[in-house]
């Protein structure tokens, strides 16, 4: 018999690991990823490979040569950042822009804060917003969806959100605008023009349900996010249905489902208590609608999540868990 181990209790571990959580998220993203390959073809495959590959490469290089620590690539977090970045850009984006996006996401938004778990903002979203502001033309020319188009330079067109926003500004009647966009079923299932991961709200929902079932995420952020979007846009719609588009349209378009299940729920950058998570989700939902309705951009999910990321430390301080013995009548 060798020497026995001596360590403090507990002596058993539940077996959950960062790796399992992270690769669980990757699995949840696969259906939507395959859908993007189907609708956007080679362009989507190229964007995905470049984004994931460069995100992992930058993480490896920075950990090894700048932080001088053993690289932990297989924890899956860099792969998620890369995949999310790919989900957030159009399929015809030039390779060099994607690489810059991955460098900003991993190098600036994640590693400069100390790596895994230390970043205040969602790295993929920082990368995406950086690209959106730096390369507005390339980032907003959206290829029209096809059925596995092999041509890389597909026809481009505006997203449903863009069409509606522009139309309302020009005073076009709402019924005309609704005729210019695909039907709700089409948009829900996967006819959204836009970024890779925005194409099918349905498959994102499936991924979200998978993560809920595996307890990778909890219901608090998705429910309060979706709920506040429905309530807030619903109120506006009831006030003036000609001026404001209905809640269902908000739900099935743009990056909403992607944000709800994959980006707002990022553990590192969201609050740690259920109460804080409810407030956080509601805040993201309301900011999303504010930006979509009154902002300069047709889509507001990324900005809304990043803005709420900034208040997470305060939410953690404000909303403490209920302590034992605090609120019970001991009569």
């Amino acid at each position: 018999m060798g020497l026995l181990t001596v360590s403090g209790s507990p002596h058993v571990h539940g077996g959950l690991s960062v790796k399992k959580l992270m690769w669980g998220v990757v699995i949840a993203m696969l259906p939507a990823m395959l859908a993007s390959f189907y609708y956007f073809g080679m362009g989507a495959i190229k964007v995905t490979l470049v984004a994931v590959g460069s995100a992992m490469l930058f993480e490896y290089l920075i950990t090894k040569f700048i932080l001088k620590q053993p690289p932990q690539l297989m924890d899956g977090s860099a792969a998620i950042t890369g995949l999310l970045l790919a989900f957030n850009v159009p399929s015809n984006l030039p390779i060099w822009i994607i690489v810059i996006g991955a460098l900003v996401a991993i190098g600036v938004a994640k590693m400069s804060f100390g790596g895994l778990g230390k970043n205040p903002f969602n790295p993929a979203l920082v990368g995406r917003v950086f690209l959106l502001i730096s390369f507005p033309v390339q980032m907003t020319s959206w290829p029209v969806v096809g059925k596995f188009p092999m041509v890389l330079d597909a026809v481009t067109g505006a997203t449903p959100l863009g069409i509606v926003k522009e139309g309302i500004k020009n005073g076009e009647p709402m019924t005309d605008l609704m005729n210019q966009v695909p039907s709700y079923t089409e948009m829900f299932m996967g006819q959204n023009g836009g970024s890779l991961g925005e194409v099918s709200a349905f498959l994102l929902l499936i991924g979200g349900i998978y993560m809920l079932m595996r307890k990778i995420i909890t219901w608090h952020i998705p429910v309060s996010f979706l709920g506040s979007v429905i309530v807030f846009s619903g109120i506006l719609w009831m006030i003036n249905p000609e001026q404001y588009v209905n809640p269902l349209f908000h739900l099935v378009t743009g990056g909403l489902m992607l944000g709800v299940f994959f980006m707002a729920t990022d553990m590192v950058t969201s609050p740690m208590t259920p109460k804080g998570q409810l407030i956080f989700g509601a805040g993201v939902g309301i900011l999303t609608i504010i930006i979509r309705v009154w902002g300069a951009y047709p889509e507001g999910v990324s900005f809304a999540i990043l803005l709420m990321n900034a208040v997470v430390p305060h939410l953690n301080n404000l909303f403490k868990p209920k302590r034992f013995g605090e609120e019970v009548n001991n009569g």
Partner: protein
Amino acid sequence: MGLLTFKIGGIHPPENKMSASAAIEDFAIPKQAVVPLAQHLGAPAKVQVKRGEMVKVGQLLAKGEAFISADIHSPVSGKVFKIEPRLDSTGFRKESVIINVEGDEWLETIDRSSDIVKEISLSESEIVKRIHEMGIVGMGGATFPSHVKYMVPQGKTVDYLIINGVECEPYLTSDHRIMLEKGEEMLIGVSIMMKALKTDKAIIGIENNKPDAIANLEKIAANFTGISIKALKVQYPQGGEKQLIDALIGRQIPSGKLPIEVGCVVNNVGTAYAIYEAVQKNKPLIERVVTVTGKPVGKPSNYKVRIGTPITELIEKSNCSLDATGKIINGGPMMGKALVTLDAPVTKGTSGVLLIENEKAKRVPVMNCIRCGKCTTVCPMGLEPHLLSIIARQGKNEQCEEERIMDCIECGSCVYTCPSGRPLLDNIRLGKSNVGFMIRNRSRK
């Protein structure tokens, strides 16, 4: 009706009750017994015997003179060989009486027959005195001297006596076997405790994974007044006294207070049985039921063992594969202590000896905190282990106190759940020790 349980946090580790069907066996008396003078919470007992003196089973070895302390009796008969510090199961050297065993001669005052004595002849104060004199401590593992619990402070009344038959630690089965095999004696013990506390209500809480124990006690309890049996959801740490009171009667002990604050006294089923033997049989606490279990154990068992028996003898007797063993625990896997030597003796608090296989002996690799908040979700005290861990390491003692670090019951649920394998509880223990020191210094000024 759903099963009763506590309201905040909790986990469900694999139960692994491998020894549940092994009946309690009498374990052989050792050749040499090592009896530490501090087997309980509080001050060590003062030794009353000299080197070379002959002692009988049940004879007083050391007297617990402080308010929180307990008497120690000789578990064997023979000659006092030495009185010197020995390593015990906590890893500290503690003054111990070492006795070379000769025969098995008991004090005549002890009733060794197996007849069940039902009549409770002692008065309330005599019962408390007897519990004190027989060296009874909490048998669940905390080893709090029992007589202190039965001296109810002025102005407080006891609404409920709560008996802990939860045994929420995975692997352990000693309480389970007592409830099955010594049910009647144990319930007489409960009646004695009720009398001492002047209460007419006792609740025995048992986790639902022991349906045989629940059925057995329900059948016997029909002949007793005021004792009810309640099934509880299998959820760790259901057996923490704060959690148990919450689960059974919905009262939550305020921060820093004792169960008496909400009109309760909590004791373990093993303690109830020990109190029966002390009061009805005049028998001091000299032996206890110990579970020997774990994957490397060929014959998982429950033994009735004399205090002072070296743990190595229990392991030898149970067909253990020591080559496959990487760690040996005194107690259960969640709150037990890893042994530093196999020569450590069984003491009043040894509920089990758990052998952990090589593959599971080492901790999982530590990664950065990913702020998933799972530690907060599972904490049964509603604390934030991730935060306490950081500020404890930074030495922010005042902030630790504000964040109620002293409420931590060290159940280990946070570490069990942490996907990053972080040593949260190690850091929190450090913080608790520093904050405790700070609080004691403050009251001194």
